[in-house]
């Protein structure tokens, strides 16, 4: 059979389709017009036109986080490409499989400062897992295959493919040949962990009196939640999740002690500080978790399972490192534990739980919600949890609302909680919610945001109306950049430098109505639950709930700077 001949542009789309890519989020422009024409002339790959390329990257990222499949976005050269940068950096920090295809000026014009030319490979270099500049149409299929392979294997991450316009020319056709199997001599990610190391970790575990599992985004990205659950339940030990790991272990489970870290629960942070054995899985001992690393968990033996060797002992020295996929290692670890004739010290474990339950009794997430009038932001999230039966996919932006959404919504499954944890990208929530809807059209998708963050990508309300994307936007409107204000309250004598814009906020209800959506404003707590029920009853509509919340609320607990895990503010006046 003769090999089919295609133009470079056709190859781009055909390869994506042959690799199982259903959606491309993007925005057209000069350098990618040939590719857009090829998109137009087929039906396998659906293109979603965003209103800003940053949103294309976030939407593809949100799609990837919810579906577990790679997200793909497409932008033109120059400003189109640079607009994706924040989205790429977001995906890089959270290890999300993302393939970003950017147009480039024709090969013979590269380096001439041509119209809409940017050195995209150079600009994106520090925030990609890898990148490719394609120099010949024939290389397009294999390059896309390699990009998808690199993005999705090992520790996932974003890959950029920069394609000069001339090699996508419609009248120059070449044989369309894909690789049978992608193989790179310089890239062979490990899956299996070293069984000797697992054995050592097991021996130490059997001696532990105060063990804890500290699990993060690697468990979700590595599809290891079931393995985590199985092992943790068999052991009966406490489990804490990082911000990126929420949902990896069920939030309502009795062994779950909550999120840890800067805004982690009292019980999670104290259990970590007092632990003598920490099983760290798919985490990176981020500074937002550890507080001062010199004071981090002084008595703990640290076992660290991660697929990325560079994550091990980067900030906190690990005693027993195990490089491998979290799913494989946890399965093997559990198998060895079950096979051994020894068990955890039940008496010690019982005492450990008694201690933890004592910390739990402190009820660190308690807040005072009056029966009428002012709405506490925490109460909004708890109402959301109730109205959605704990089943919605929740995306968030960045700030106080993000922490409230992390602490007060109990995530019962992986890929249910979608947020920009590493980079902390305001403007992530709405486009990520769009991607989430494409990944799981049957789910309710709520975007928890604030009046600050939502304005960073509010133009996507237009995309949502074009494609009828029924995002439920929960806007915690306190008329301040809340987290900035909290820090200014705590560290800058309440001097609110550029953290408010009270007189110039838009009327969000009118604004979303102008885009063809439904807006609901809530100002009193007695109206909240009914309004939220009404919001979620409108299944096919985007509903924007503009909820006026208490302006003076802070997020607690909060780590005391430079302290240990156990050092926290629990309220505005009480310390741990």
């Amino acid at each position, binding site marked *: 059979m003769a090999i089919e001949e295609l133009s470079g542009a056709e190859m781009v789309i055909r390869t994506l389709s042959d690799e199982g890519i259903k959606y491309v989020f993007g925005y057209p422009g000069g350098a990618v017009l040939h590719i857009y024409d090829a998109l137009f002339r087929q039906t396998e790959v659906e293109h979603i036109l965003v209103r800003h390329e940053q949103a294309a990257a976030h939407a593809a990222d949100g799609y990837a986080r919810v579906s577990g499949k790679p997200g793909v976005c497409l932008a033109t050269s120059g400003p189109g490409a640079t607009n994706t940068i924040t989205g790429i950096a977001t995906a890089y920090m959270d290890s999300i499989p993302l393939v970003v295809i950017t147009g480039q000026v024709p090969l013979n014009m590269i380096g001439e400062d041509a119209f809409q030319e940017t050195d995209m490979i150079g600009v994106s270099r520090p925030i990609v897992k890898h990148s490719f500049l394609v120099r010949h149409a024939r290389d397009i299929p294999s390059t896309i295959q390699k990009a998808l392979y690199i993005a999705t294997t090992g520790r996932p991450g974003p890959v950029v493919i920069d394609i000069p316009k001339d090699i996508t020319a419609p009248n120059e056709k070449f044989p369309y040949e894909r690789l049978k199997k992608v193989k790179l001599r*310089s890239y062979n990610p490990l899956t299996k962990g070293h069984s000797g190391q697992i054995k050592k970790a097991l021996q130490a575990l059997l001696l532990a009196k105060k063990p804890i599992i500290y699990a993060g985004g690697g468990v979700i990205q590595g599809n290891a939640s079931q393995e985590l659950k199985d092992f943790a339940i068999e052991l009966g030990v406490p489990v804490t999740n990082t911000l990126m790991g929420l949902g990896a272990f069920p939030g309502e489970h009795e062994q779950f002690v909550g999120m840890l870290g800067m805004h982690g629960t009292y019980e999670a942070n104290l259990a970590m500080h007092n632990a003598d054995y920490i099983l760290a899985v798919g985490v990176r001992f981020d500074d937002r978790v550890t507080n001062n690393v010199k004071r981090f968990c002084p008595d703990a033996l640290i076992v660290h399972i991660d697929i990325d060797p*560079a994550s091990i002992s*980067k900030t906190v020295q690990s005693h027993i490192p195990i490089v491998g996929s979290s799913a494989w290692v946890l399965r093997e670890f559990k198998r060895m534990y079950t096979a051994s004739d020894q068990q955890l010290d039940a008496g010690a474990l019982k005492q450990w739980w008694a201690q933890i339950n004592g910390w739990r009794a402190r009820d660190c997430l308690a807040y005072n919600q009056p029966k009428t009038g002012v709405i506490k932001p925490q109460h909004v999230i708890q109402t959301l949890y109730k109205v959605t039966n704990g089943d919605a996919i929740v995306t968030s932006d960045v700030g106080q609302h993000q922490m409230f959404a992390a602490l007060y919504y109990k995530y019962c499954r992986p890929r249910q909680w979608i947020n920009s944890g590493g980079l902390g990208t305001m403007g992530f929530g709405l486009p990520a919610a769009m991607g989430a809807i494409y990944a799981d059209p049957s789910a309710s998708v709520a975007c928890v945001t604030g009046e600050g963050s939502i304005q960073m990508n509010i133009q996507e309300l237009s995309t949502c109306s074009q494609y009828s994307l029924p995002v439920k936007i929960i806007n915690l409107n306190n008329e301040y950049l809340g987290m900035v204000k909290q820090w200014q309250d705590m560290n800058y004598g309440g001097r609110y430098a550029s953290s408010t814009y009270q007189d110039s906020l838009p009327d969000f209800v009118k604004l979303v109505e102008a885009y063809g959506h439904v807006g609901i404003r809530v100002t009193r707590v007695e109206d909240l639950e009914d309004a939220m029920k009404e919001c979620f009853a409108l299944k096919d509509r985007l509903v924007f709930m503009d909820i006026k919340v208490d302006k003076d609320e802070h997020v607690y607990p909060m780590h005391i700077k430079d302290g240990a895990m156990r050092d926290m503010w629990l309220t505005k006046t009480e310390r741990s």
Partner: protein
Amino acid sequence: MRRIISVLIENEAGALSRVIGLFSQRSYNIESLTVAPTEDKTLSRLTITTSGDDKVLEQITKQLNKLIEVVKLVDLTDGPHVERELMLVKIKASGSARDEVKRTADIFRGQIVDVGVDLYTVQLAGTSDKLDAFLVAVDQGSVVEVVRSGISGIARGDRILTV
């Protein structure tokens, strides 16, 4: 502590910039860097001289290994190895200094590779310490221009860095 890391990397456009970018991005030192294709034209070999404590060095090697185009690397300073640097020095050489420069070059087993009316160009190969010593030995005021290649190195015995 000074370390010499040898890296085999795909001989592709942009690969070197990823290595250099990594060092600047993560605030690692580069004291010297040499790079050229190997006998296998698809591979380049880099020799990077860097410094830092064990923790930093461990991160440097891990982060280098993480680069997709890095095929293999070895820390030469982990074992016995040979390291060499090439230096070309232009030195004022007129009158009595002409003999003196020649004598000093001979002592250091250097060669005069270019001769001008008032200048010699001396070529010298050896460890970096030896090149430093030569520059101290010749009259400081007479050195006009110095160019050094940076260190290249290879392990002794049967330790071999190859694909």
